[in-house]
Structure formats: structure tokens, C-alpha cells
């Protein structure tokens, strides 16, 4: 058995390494002695014989190395040797080591964090089994919005999915017997949990078989987090009856802790069957085929062997069928598939992550370039050592391996440090709730995959910058260097090192430019014109369904609330808008508008699809929306008066050409109602800050069937801290059982600005880190160039050179590099911000402030980095220097 034998031998050699070494040395010594014996016998004196024997034998170092290699196990052995040597070398130059490790730790850390985000957001957004075959259907304008009847048809007629589930949001008042509060959850199809293939943590889930028509399944499944916080982990909760908007529901189960719903960022408190949603939303969506927002998202597992392309074709076929069968209610738009949980944000998130990933990659590249530069400089400084080892018979491969070991060692240490920081950061972030009270969180889980990626990156970068000095070592001529000592060859046109540094400065300038653009964009979006004034405005959210109001009672109660709040001292205006005001919780929903004369109100004849809001008289004053022409609603515009609308400038322009032309004109709603335009208001933002200008109409809420969910906009210069309790007390006097949510409009806008904020913060951090990188690089180059030319500078000074000239000689090159690199980076940065403008509102690089900022930042950077070398160049004492050398 040859193999096991040799294997055993290898293992044995590993452990008996030092003994082997000693034996090898003894054997070679014995050989030389025998040879010397022979020579002595031929007449030489013993000492001469031994000398001759040694000379004949040649370099014993090389022989020993070759023997070790021949004896096997040498890779590990020489690796341990390299490692020890590397550790010794690094300990000898702690400054270099610390700079290298910190640089890498930052770069690897940044990449690991970004990968963590990507892992959480794109690679596996939902914590459910087999998420890779789970797809959400997108319909029309890149959203999952769908009506419930359409969902049923999709579910029953498609041939691509195992089963399709659907859900929408449910915002309810929940009464467990003590203080009623608001909660948000999902109203889901009965098969929801079965489609997701998850098991309950406690009790049971509801199933498709529990659905028996409208309001037939009053069951409630709690999320683990909500069960934990609201019911304090009480296992007796199963079977308890709680009231959602005064309707009794039975708690039947608790979802597992790792499952946080099927929309990213938004974790629900509970899950209830969608067949019961009328009880909590007050509106029956189960039969409204024409509705575009009955269902938030439809998703399911593709059948084995079905590709997404086939599934899309299948969905299109169902869509064609629906269009043929329900021409009035169904407009054929294209279907597509997206990652479940992300359908609505897929594109934005992807663009954001791509940008971030790109930047992180650039940082890593810059760090590598920088470290490559440092290693090259070090290899140059160590050329004497390398030459000596070459002369003693060490092979070049061996020396390279040693240098590479050093590089990899540094990269591993740096990677570990970066990863540790990253773990702490990710853990903090996964606990982070950006908006207290809102069920929003970032699902980050530091895990083995992230560690593996970081490790791989560390190793890769280690090899990358370890390889940089290879050429230098391969070219080393030992005799030249040992003879003449290391002298810098000044005047080479441009070295690899300088090129790397220029690239790095350019990358740094890109980062600085991007982060400045982002910061400016955010600043501008905070002060942009939204079409309403958020300062001094409070939003009071109520849902009258939660206190059992229905029918005419709703409008009566809403009027009473408005009157009650008016009596609070300091309140100037109170306006009401059904559901949510513009921009809040992406509340803008579109309606189909037809020209007055259009008889056939089919999807193909739609004249415009504006956002629609139902508002009370005084809403525009309370919201601070400027009236351009005509009039706003009055209290006389009630159900008995003709239907009126206020439209925005965009809508007026689109349909009627100009603002004055629109006043008094008519348009028709889907149901045929003729609506007259009473006034025109300024344009604004409705769904998101980055949207292009959209048309919008405002209808009079008291002319419409009342909506139980509404928001009161209260304008008052009073301190929100005092105003909120005053509003709360007033409403409590009216109805003690009505949950009320009060916050300032500004704080609600934070939700809208969240993506831009995250982008800005991460870009800011990246920019700062990116700026750190070339500092070490420029510092390295400047210090190197000063120390190599000390003698020359000394002579110049002795000959009477001025300080300025000395500085120019010493630092001219680094500065030139800085200037070129910055210019290139600035240009690239301007190009890169095109990507940014997808996410960051009003991100434009054509901004003098940004340009000036970048130039200033880069000059500061150069100043910081060259300060110490400049001081050193200036403090040269030519006398001492010339005497020494």
C-alpha cells in the first residue's frame, strides 16, 4: 500500500519537522566530513581539506530546501516558516501593519455590510422555504395591485403556479378588553400560509377550506413579535376572542418568529382571512373587479419545470381572457414576475443596491491599489534583503511566496477586523426601527454567507495587492543591489505605483462627488415644493370603523370632530382627507377619468388617470395648498349639490389646455358621474418624491359615500407637544372608544424620505471612507519620494534653494497626481450620479456647490496627506545630511 504509507510519512514528517531538519543537517555535515577525509588522505591539511569540501558542496541552503521539497510535506512546512517570518517582519514595522490592516478592515467591512443588505433585500427577501421559486405577479405599472375577482381568476386559470395566494393590508383598531389600539396586518387569502409552506409557532393557521364566502372566517393569526409585545408570550391566547373594529375574531395561532410577512420592510402584527376584510375596511372589495387596489400582491411557487418566461406567457393568456370577458372592468396591461415581497420596490431597491455595491467594490479596489502601492514601496525598501536571500541561493518563487504570505496575512487580519465591526453593525441595524410605531424594519441577518464572502474578498484582495510587487522581485539583480546599495532611480516616467495612486485618487473623487450630490439632493428634497406646507401641520388619523360607525353616522361624526378641534385655542384651520394625505404611506390612488362626452367608458377611452383625494372644505387652507383659480369646496357642497372637483394645474393643462379654461368644465368618472371643476390648485407630489409631475383631482368628501378612515389636517402655530394632547382630549370627549394617532406632517414625511435618507447616509459614510483611503496612498508616495531624495534635497538647500523650490522638488509629483486623479474622478463622479438620480430626489451633479465642495475636499485631502512629508523635507539640515552620507 503505497499511498497510505507515503501519506503516513507526510504526516509524520509534519510532526517530526525539527528532528528532520536536524537529521538533514547532520547528514550533509557527515557528507562533507567524508569528503574531507578523502581529501586529507590525498595529502591536504585537515583545515584546508574541510574548506575545500565545503566549497565543492556548494550552497547548502539551497540543497536543504530542495531536500525538504523532495521529502514532501514541504508546502505546509515552508508555509509555517513563511508565516513566522511574515509575523516577524510585520511586528518590526507596526506603522505599516496598522495602516494596512485598518485600510483593509474598512474596505472589507464596507463590502460585507453592503453584501449583507444585498443578501437581505435581493438574494432572499423572505424568510420562507424554497424562496427561489416564489414569484409575485406584477401587473401594469410595475406593481402587484390587483382586484380580488381578478386574483381568483388568475389563481384558478393559470397553469404555471402550484397555487396562488394574495394579500392586502388591514389597518384596524384592536380591542382586547383593555385600551383599544391600532394595529396593522395583512388580510390574506385562505391558502396564504400553505402557499408559503410555513408552519405555525403555536396553534394553527387558517386554510383555504376555512373560507365559506363573505365574513365567514373570523380567525386571527398573530405575528410572533406582536404576540410577544402585546400578549406577553401568553400561550393561553389561543381561542381568545378579540375585537377588530368592533367585530369579534378568534385567535387561532401564532406565526413563527422568523416569518415577518411578505412585504419587505413592513412586518404585520396579524394575519386575517381576506374574506372578512369588509368587517375591518368597511368596503367590500370581494366583488369589485374594476378596483385596482383590492389586492396588494399575488404570489406563489412556480410548478417544477416551469420557467418564469412560460409563467408570464401563461399569465398574459389569463389576462387576455379577462379582457375579453370583462371589457369594461379589465384593462389588459402586461403581466410580469418579480421577487415576492419586492414587487413594488424591486426596481428601486435593485438600482440602489447596484449603486451601493459598485461603490463598495470601488472602495475595495482603491484599498487594494493603495496596499499594492505600499507593498511595492516596501519591497523596494527591502530590495537589499531580497537580494541577499537570492545570493544565498533562495529561489525567486520562494521569495515571492514569502511576500505573498505577508500580504495574505495582512488581508486576513484586516478582513477579520472588518468583519467583526460589520457583525456588530448588522446586528444593531436588524434591531433598528427607523420609525417608532410603524411596523418597518430592515431584515438583516449576519450569517455564514456574509462571513464567507468577506473572507473570500479578503483573500482575493490579499493576492491582488500581494502580486503588485512581483515584477519588481523578479527583476531584482542580487549582485547590483548588494554592490551599490539601494538607490532610487529618479526620473522614470511613470511607475505602476503612481498609476495606481492616480486611479485611487480618481475613485476617491468619485465617492466624494457622489456623496456630495446625494447630500445636496436630500437637502433640496427637504425644502422642495410638495404642493403643501408641512410646517405647523399636525395629522390626526382615525378610523371610525374601529369604533363601529357606519353609514350616515360617519359623516356626522367627522363634522363633529372638525368642529371640536376648531374650538382648541390656536388652531387656525382643520381639513379632512379620506384615508391618507398625499405622500403618506404611498396613499395616492388613481382613478379613471373620461371626457364628458365619452359614452363608452372602457379602458381604451380613458382620458387621464390622475391621483384622487377626497377632501373636506378648508382642506386646502389647512394643508397649505395654493388655490390658483376658481374656488375650493364649501360646506354647502353636500350630497344635494352638483358634484364638484378641484384639480391640479397638470390635470387642467392636460385635459383643457390651460388653468382658466378648466374652470367650470366637466369630466366623467368611471361610474358616469359628471363632475364640474370648481377650482385649480398648484401642482404637488402625490405618491413619491421622485415622481414626474402627475395629474391629481380632489373630490368633495361630503358629496361621496363616506369613508371611515380619514385624516384630519390641523394647522396651528402651537407647539405640537401641547397640541397633540389637546386634540386627543377633544376626540376622547366625543368617543372614548376611538383609537387616535397624532403626529406632525413632517415626521410622517420621514417615511417617504426614508430611502433617500438611507442612500444619503450610506453614501456619506462611503464618501468619508473613500476619502480616507488615498490619504495613506498620497502620504506613502510623498514620504517615499522625500526619503529617497533626501540627499538631493540637501544639496539643493546647501546650494541656496528656497523653501518653495524644495517643496516643489519633493512634492510636485504627488500634487500633480492628485490634480489629475481628482479631475478624472470628478468627471466619472458626474457620470455616476446618473445612477444616483434614480434614488435620490433631485440628485444633480451640475451644481456649483457640489463642484466647489469636491475640489475643496480633494485639496484638503492632499494637504493632510502631504503635511508630514513636507515638514520633513523642510527640516532637512544639509550639513548633517551631507556629513552622514
Amino acid at each position, binding site marked *: 500500500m503505497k499511498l497510505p504509507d507515503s501519506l503516513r510519512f507526510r504526516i509524520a514528517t509534519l510532526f517530526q519537522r525539527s528532528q528532520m531538519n536536524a537529521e538533514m543537517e547532520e*547528514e550533509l555535515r557527515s557528507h562533507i566530513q567524508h569528503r574531507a577525509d578523502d581529501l586529507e588522505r590525498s595529502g591536504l591539511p585537515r583545515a584546508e581539506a574541510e574548506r575545500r569540501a565545503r566549497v565543492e558542496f556548494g550552497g547548502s541552503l539551497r540543497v536543504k530546501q530542495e531536500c*525538504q521539497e523532495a521529502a514532501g510535506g514541504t508546502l505546509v512546512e515552508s508555509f509555517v516558516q513563511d508565516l513566522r517570518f511574515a509575523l516577524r517582519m510585520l511586528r518590526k514595522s507596526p506603522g505599516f501593519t496598522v495602516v494596512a490592516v485598518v485600510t483593509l478592515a474598512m474596505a472589507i467591512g464596507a463590502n460585507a455590510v453592503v453584501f449583507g443588505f444585498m443578501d437581505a433585500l435581493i438574494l432572499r427577501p423572505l424568510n420562507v422555504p424554497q424562496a427561489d421559486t416564489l414569484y409575485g405577479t406584477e401587473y401594469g405599472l410595475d406593481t402587484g395591485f390587483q382586484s380580488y375577482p381578478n386574483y381568483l381568476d388568475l389563481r384558478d386559470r393559470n397553469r404555471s403556479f402550484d397555487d396562488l395566494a394574495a394579500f392586502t393590508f388591514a389597518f384596524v383598531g384592536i380591542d382586547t378588553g383593555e385600551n383599544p389600539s391600532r394595529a396593522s396586518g395583512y388580510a390574506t387569502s385562505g391558502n396564504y400560509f400553505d402557499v408559503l409552506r410555513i408552519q405555525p409557532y403555536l396553534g394553527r393557521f387558517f386554510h383555504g377550506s376555512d373560507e365559506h364566502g363573505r365574513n365567514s372566517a373570523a380567525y386571527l393569526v398573530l405575528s410572533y413579535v406582536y404576540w410577544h409585545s402585546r400578549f406577553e408570550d401568553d400561550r393561553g391566547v389561543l381561542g381568545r376572542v378579540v375585537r377588530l373594529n368592533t367585530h369579534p375574531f378568534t385567535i387561532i395561532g401564532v406565526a413563527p418568529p422568523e416569518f415577518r410577512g411578505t412585504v419587505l420592510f413592513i412586518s404585520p402584527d396579524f394575519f386575517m382571512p381576506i374574506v372578512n376584510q369588509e368587517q375591518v375596511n368597511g368596503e367590500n372589495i370581494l366583488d369589485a373587479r374594476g378596483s385596482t387596489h383590492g389586492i396588494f400582491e399575488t404570489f406563489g411557487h412556480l410548478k417544477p419545470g416551469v420557467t418564469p418566461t412560460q409563467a408570464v406567457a401563461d399569465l398574459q393568456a389569463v389576462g387576455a381572457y379577462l379582457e375579453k370577458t370583462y371589457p369594461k372592468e379589465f384593462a389588459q396591461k402586461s403581466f410580469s414576475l418579480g421577487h415576492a415581497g419586492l414587487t413594488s420596490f424591486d426596481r428601486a431597491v435593485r438600482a440602489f443596491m447596484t449603486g451601493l455595491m459598485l461603490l463598495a467594490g470601488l472602495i475595495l479596489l482603491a484599498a487594494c491599489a493603495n496596499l499594492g502601492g505600499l507593498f511595492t514601496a516596501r519591497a523596494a525598501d527591502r530590495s537589499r534583503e531580497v537580494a541577499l536571500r537570492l545570493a544565498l541561493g533562495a529561489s525567486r518563487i520562494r521569495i515571492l511566496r514569502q511576500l505573498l504570505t505577508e500580504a495574505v496575512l495582512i488581508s486576513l487580519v484586516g478582513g477579520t477586523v472588518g468583519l467583526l465591526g460589520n457583525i456588530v453593525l448588522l446586528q444593531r441595524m436588524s434591531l433598528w426601527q427607523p420609525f417608532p410605531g410603524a411596523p418597518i424594519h430592515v431584515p438583516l441577518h449576519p450569517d455564514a454567507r456574509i462571513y464567507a464572502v468577506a473572507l473570500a474578498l479578503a483573500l482575493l484582495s490579499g493576492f491582488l495587492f500581494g502580486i503588485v510587487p512581483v515584477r519588481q522581485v523578479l527583476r531584482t539583480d542580487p549582485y547590483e543591489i548588494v554592490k551599490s546599495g539601494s538607490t532610487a532611480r529618479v526620473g522614470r516616467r511613470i511607475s505602476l505605483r503612481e498609476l495606481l495612486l492616480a486611479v485611487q485618487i480618481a475613485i476617491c473623487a468619485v465617492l466624494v462627488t457622489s456623496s456630495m450630490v446625494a447630500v445636496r439632493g436630500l437637502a433640496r428634497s427637504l425644502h422642495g415644493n410638495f404642493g403643501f406646507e408641512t410646517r405647523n401641520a399636525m395629522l390626526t388619523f382615525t378610523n371610525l370603523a374601529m369604533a363601529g360607525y357606519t353609514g350616515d353616522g360617519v359623516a356626522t361624526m367627522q363634522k363633529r370632530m372638525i368642529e371640536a378641534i376648531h374650538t382648541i385655542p390656536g388652531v387656525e384651520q382643520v381639513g379632512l382627507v379620506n384615508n391618507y394625505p398625499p405622500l403618506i404611506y404611498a396613499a395616492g390612488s388613481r382613478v379613471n377619468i373620461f371626457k364628458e362626452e365619452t359614452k363608452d367608458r372602457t379602458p381604451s377611452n380613458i382620458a387621464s388617470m390622475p391621483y384622487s383625494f377626497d377632501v373636506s372644505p378648508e382642506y386646502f387652507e389647512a394643508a397649505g395648498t395654493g388655490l390658483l383659480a376658481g374656488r375650493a369646496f364649501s360646506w354647502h357642497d353636500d350630497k344635494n349639490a352638483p358634484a364638484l372637483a378641484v384639480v391640479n394645474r397638470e390635470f387642467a393643462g392636460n385635459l383643457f389646455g390651460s388653468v382658466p379654461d378648466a374652470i367650470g368644465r366637466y369630466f366623467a368618472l368611471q361610474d358616469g358621474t359628471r363632475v364640474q371643476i370648481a377650482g385649480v390648485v398648484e401642482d404637488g407630489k402625490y405618491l413619491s418624491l421622485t415622481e414626474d409631475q402627475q395629474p391629481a383631482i380632489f373630490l368633495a368628501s361630503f358629496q361621496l359615500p363616506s369613508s371611515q378612515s380619514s385624516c384630519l389636517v390641523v394647522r396651528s402655530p402651537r407647539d405640537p407637544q401641547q397640541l397633540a394632547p389637546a386634540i386627543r382630549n377633544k376626540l376622547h370627549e366625543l368617543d372614548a372608544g376611538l383609537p387616535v394617532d397624532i403626529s406632525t406632517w413632517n415626521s410622517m414625511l420621514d417615511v417617504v424620505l426614508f430611502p433617500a435618507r438611507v442612500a444619503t447616509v450610506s453614501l456619506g459614510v462611503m464618501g468619508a471612507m473613500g476619502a480616507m483611503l488615498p490619504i495613506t496612498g498620497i502620504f506613502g508616495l510623498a514620504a517615499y519620494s522625500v526619503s529617497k531624495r533626501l540627499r538631493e534635497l540637501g544639496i539643493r538647500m546647501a546650494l541656496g534653494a528656497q523653501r518653495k523650490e524644495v517643496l516643489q522638488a519633493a512634492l510636485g509629483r504627488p500634487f500633480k497626481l492628485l490634480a489629475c486623479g481628482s479631475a478624472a474622478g470628478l468627471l466619472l463622479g458626474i457620470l455616476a450620479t446618473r445612477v444616483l438620480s434614480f434614488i435620490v430626489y433631485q440628485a444633480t451633479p451640475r451644481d456649483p456647490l457640489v463642484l466647489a465642495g469636491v475640489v475643496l475636499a480633494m485639496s484638503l485631502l492632499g494637504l493632510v496627506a502631504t503635511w508630514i512629508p513636507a515638514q520633513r523635507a523642510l527640516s532637512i539640515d544639509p550639513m548633517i545630511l551631507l556629513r552622514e552620507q
Partner: protein
Amino acid sequence: MTNQAQLLPGTLDLLILRAVSLGPLHGYGVLLRIAQISGNALLIEQGALYPGLFRLVRQGVLKASWGTSENNRRAKFYELTAAGRKRLREETASWNRLATAIGSALAAQPEET
């Protein structure tokens, strides 16, 4: 020294095996034995010998043990293992075939036409 033949690559191992097959030898002894059996026609560089020896030990065709030399010095002695004897037989045969083939190829005369 000038009429010494260059070693063909791969022949060092064969020579070592052959030298050791005549009885256990230490490293220097192997050198002397090769010089002796080749009639001083082949000279092996002293440093090149040891990696060869270590390689053969690793391959399991040689085994080594410490002993005392004829000069009364401690030395490491090498001898063939069973696998080594087999290898020597095979490589000798294959070398002979090669040498014969090359010899006859070089000796061939152009055929009369």
C-alpha cells in the same frame, strides 16, 4: 574531467538505485560507487544527490537508517526496499530497450536502392 558524460534527465534515480542495490551506502558512498561503476565517466554534483535520495525515500523505494561508516563517522545508510528492487528491474529493462533502439537507429545505414 572533460570526457565526463552529461547526465540525461531522469537517469540520476536509476543510477542511485543501481548503486544502492550492491549494498547499503551512505550519501557520499553513493557518489563514490557511481563514479566507480561508471568508470569515472559519470560525475554527479554533490548537492544534486541529496534531493534525489530524499525523493526516493518518499516514494518508498529506498529506506534509510543511521549507522557508522568505514571512517568511523555517523552516517545515514540507504538500502533498497522490495519496491525499490522491482523498480530497478523495470527501469533497467526499459533503459536497455531505449538504449538498444537508439543505438540501432544511429547505426542504421542508408539502404541500397
